[in-house]
C-alpha cells in the first residue's frame, strides 16, 4: 500500500528519482499538450518548425555569407550556418522555455502536486522534436552539397545533443527557479540569448577569434557546433579536447541547475 509521509522537506533524496519515474506519463502528456497547442489555429501548422530555421539560414547567408563575406571554413556558407543554427535554436529555445515553464504553469503548480522537474523536462522534449523536424532540412542540404558525414561524426551526434540538452536544461532550471522569485528573468533572458548568439560560433567559424578562441571554448555550445561541423562537413579534425571541455562544462551546469532548482522547489507554490 502506498504510504505518503508529509514532513518538512529535505532537499535531496533518492525518492525524487523514483517519483520522477512514477510520473513519467505526465512528462509525456505535458510535451504532447505543448505540441498540440503550439500550432493550433495556424495555417501551415508544423511547417513552422522547418520554416523558421530555413528562412533564418537564407537571411544569414545573404547578409553574413555574401555581403559581409564571413569565412566559413571552406564549406558553402548555407550548410555551414545551418548546422550552427540547428543546435543553436535547440539550445536557445529550450533555455527560454525551461526558464519560463514554472511561471507559465503557475496555475497548475499551486493546485496539484507532481515533481516540478517534470515541467522543464517536458519543455525540452518538445524542443527536441522541433530539432528533429528541422534536421530534415540539413539532411536535404547534405545531399544537395554532396557531403557524406564520417561515421564518427554520426556517432557523436547523440553526445552533442546530450551536451546541448544538459547545457540548456541546467541553465534553464537555474533561471526557472530564479524566475519564480524575480521576474526580471523574463526581460533579461531574451537579451542575454541574443548576446550569447554572438559569442557562439554560429554565424562565423571559431577560428576567426584567433588567439582569443579559448574564451569561446568556455561556452559549451562552441564545442558542440565545432564538433558537429567537423564530423558532418570535415571542416577540421574533431577537437576532442574542446568536446571534453564542453562536456564537463555542461555537466557542471546541469548539476548546479538541478541543485538550485531542488533547493528553491519547496517554496515554488508559495511565491510563484
Amino acid at each position, binding site marked *: *500500500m*502506498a*504510504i*505518503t*509521509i*508529509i*514532513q*518538512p*522537506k529535505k532537499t535531496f533524496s533518492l525518492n525524487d528519482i523514483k517519483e520522477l519515474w512514477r510520473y513519467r*506519463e*505526465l512528462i509525456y*502528456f505535458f510535451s*504532447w*499538450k505543448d505540441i*498540440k*497547442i503550439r500550432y*493550433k*489555429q495556424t495555417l501551415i501548422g508544423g511547417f513552422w518548425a522547418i520554416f523558421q530555421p530555413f528562412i533564418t539560414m537564407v537571411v544569414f547567408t545573404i547578409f553574413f555569407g555574401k555581403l559581409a563575406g564571413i569565412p566559413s571554413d571552406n564549406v558553402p556558407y548555407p550548410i555551414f550556418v545551418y548546422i550552427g543554427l540547428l543546435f543553436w535554436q535547440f539550445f536557445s529555445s529550450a533555455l527560454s522555455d525551461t526558464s519560463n515553464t514554472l511561471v507559465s504553469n503557475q*496555475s*497548475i*503548480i*499551486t*493546485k*496539484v*502536486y*507532481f515533481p516540478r522537474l517534470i515541467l522543464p523536462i517536458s519543455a525540452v522534449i518538445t524542443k527536441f522534436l522541433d530539432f528533429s523536424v528541422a534536421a530534415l532540412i540539413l539532411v536535404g542540404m547534405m545531399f544537395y552539397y554532396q557531403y557524406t558525414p564520417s561515421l564518427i561524426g554520426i556517432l557523436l551526434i547523440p553526445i552533442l545533443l546530450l551536451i546541448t540538452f544538459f547545457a540548456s536544461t541546467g541553465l534553464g532550471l537555474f533561471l526557472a527557479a530564479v524566475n519564480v*522569485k*524575480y*521576474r*526580471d528573468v523574463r526581460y533579461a533572458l531574451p537579451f542575454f540569448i541574443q548576446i550569447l548568439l554572438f559569442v557562439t560560433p554560429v554565424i562565423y567559424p571559431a577560428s576567426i577569434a584567433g588567439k582569443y578562441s579559448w574564451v569561446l571554448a568556455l561556452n559549451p555550445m562552441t564545442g558542440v557546433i565545432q564538433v558537429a561541423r567537423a564530423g558532418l562537413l570535415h571542416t577540421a579534425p574533431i577537437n576532442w579536447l574542446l568536446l571534453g571541455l564542453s562536456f564537463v562544462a555542461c555537466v557542471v551546469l546541469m548539476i548546479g541547475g538541478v541543485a538550485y532548482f531542488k533547493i528553491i522547489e*519547496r*517554496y515554488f*507554490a*508559495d*511565491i*510563484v
Partner: protein
Amino acid sequence: MEPIIEVIGLGKRYDIQHRRGEYISLRDVIANIFKHPFNFAKTKAKNVAGFSKKSDFWAIKNINFTVERGEVIGIIGANGAGKSTLLKILTGITPPTEGKAILRGHVSSLLEVGTGFHPELTGRENIFLNGAILGMKHSEMQKKFDSIVEFAGIGKFLDTPVKRYSSGMYVRLAFSVAAHIEPDILLVDEVLAVGDAEFQKKCLGKMDDVTKNHGRTILFVSHNIAAVQSLCARTILIEKGQVAMVGETRDVIERYLSNNLVRSGVVEYPQNLESDAVIRRVCILNKDGEQRSELSVAEPFKIAVDFDCNQKIADVAVSLLIYSRDQDLLLYSSDSDSTEKFSEYSPGSYHALITLPEFLLNVGKYSFEILLHTPNIHLYANVKNFGFEIKNTDNPRSIVFQGNHPGRLSSILSYKIETNKK
C-alpha cells in the same frame, strides 16, 4: 485498524516576504543593499544564524487529527483560518514547516476543477491531459473514458475545443474527470462552488456514492455549510490556524456559526491603504436611528456602511446579501438595482445607507454581507457574517397565529376577497 490519515503537530510558517502575490524585483533588492548595506548584512547574518525576528506568520500551527478509513470529514473555518493551507500541505503542494502527516493510501486532490485545462484543446484531449495531471494512469483513463463523457453530458461536443464550450459545459466536463479518479483518499477544496445547482447535486450524489459504496475517504473543505452538513458525519473547525473543535458535524457547524457571527450592531474595521477601497464601519440602525442588532419585524431598519476609497474605482456596485441561519442566500440587492448603472468613486470617504422595509424578513436570525465590487469581475472589499435578529414584536400576525409563524419572508400581501353574487 490504523487511521488512514494521521496529522501530528502540523505547522506552516510563512515569512511575510514569501507570501503570495507580492513579487519582488531584483532591482529593489539590489537598491536596498546599497542603501542600507549595514542593515542588510545584519539581517542576513541574523537569518543565517537563525535569530531573525522577521515578521513570521503561522498560517497553521500544531494541527492534530486523525481520519478513519471510509470517513467523509469536513473542514470548515472562516476565511484565512488556514483551511486551504492545511489542504495544500496534505496534497504536497507546499511542505510544512514542522510536524508530520501520514496518509495511508493513494492520495488525489481536487483543489480546483479543470486544473491544467487548455482552452485550445478539445474536450477529448483535455480529459486525458487533466486525468494525467490528477494522477490517473493512461490505461485507467481509457477504461473510464465513456463514463466520464456520459457523466459530463457533452456528447457531440467531444471534439470541439473547450474554449467554445459554455461555462456550464466546461465545469461539467472538468468535474466529471475529477469525479472519476479513484484514490483511497480524496482531498477536496471549494470545488462545488461552481456549476449550476442541479449539477452540484449530481456531484454531491457522486461523492456520496463513492464513499458509501467504495469505502473511500474524503477530506472536504468548504464554505458551503449545507454541503458539509449533508456529506460529512464529522467535521473539523479551524480557527486562526488551530483546530478549534472536532466532532459531530451539527455541533461543529453550530459552534462555527455562533462564533463567527458579529452581534453587536456596529463593527469598525481598520484602514488599509494598500487596497483600493476598504469598508471602515458597518452598523444596523433601527427606525429611531439607534444601533441595534435586534429589530422588530414591524419596523423598517437601515444598514449603514462607511467606506474609504484610496484609489479611483469605476463600475462599482454596493451590494447587500442576506443569508438565513443555515447560510441560504435570501436576498442579493445592489444599489445598481434602481439606478441601473454602476458608479465611479474618486478617492475619499463615503457613506451608504440601505433601507430595508418592515415585514421583509420573518422572525428569526439572519446574517448579511456587504460587497463593494464590480459584479463577477472584481471584489474591492467585503465584510460578512454580520448577524442580526428579527424579533416578534408588534407583529399583527401574533394576534391570530400563536407562536412561531413559519416561512422566511413576512411580506404582507394584499388579499381581495369578495363573494360571488349569484
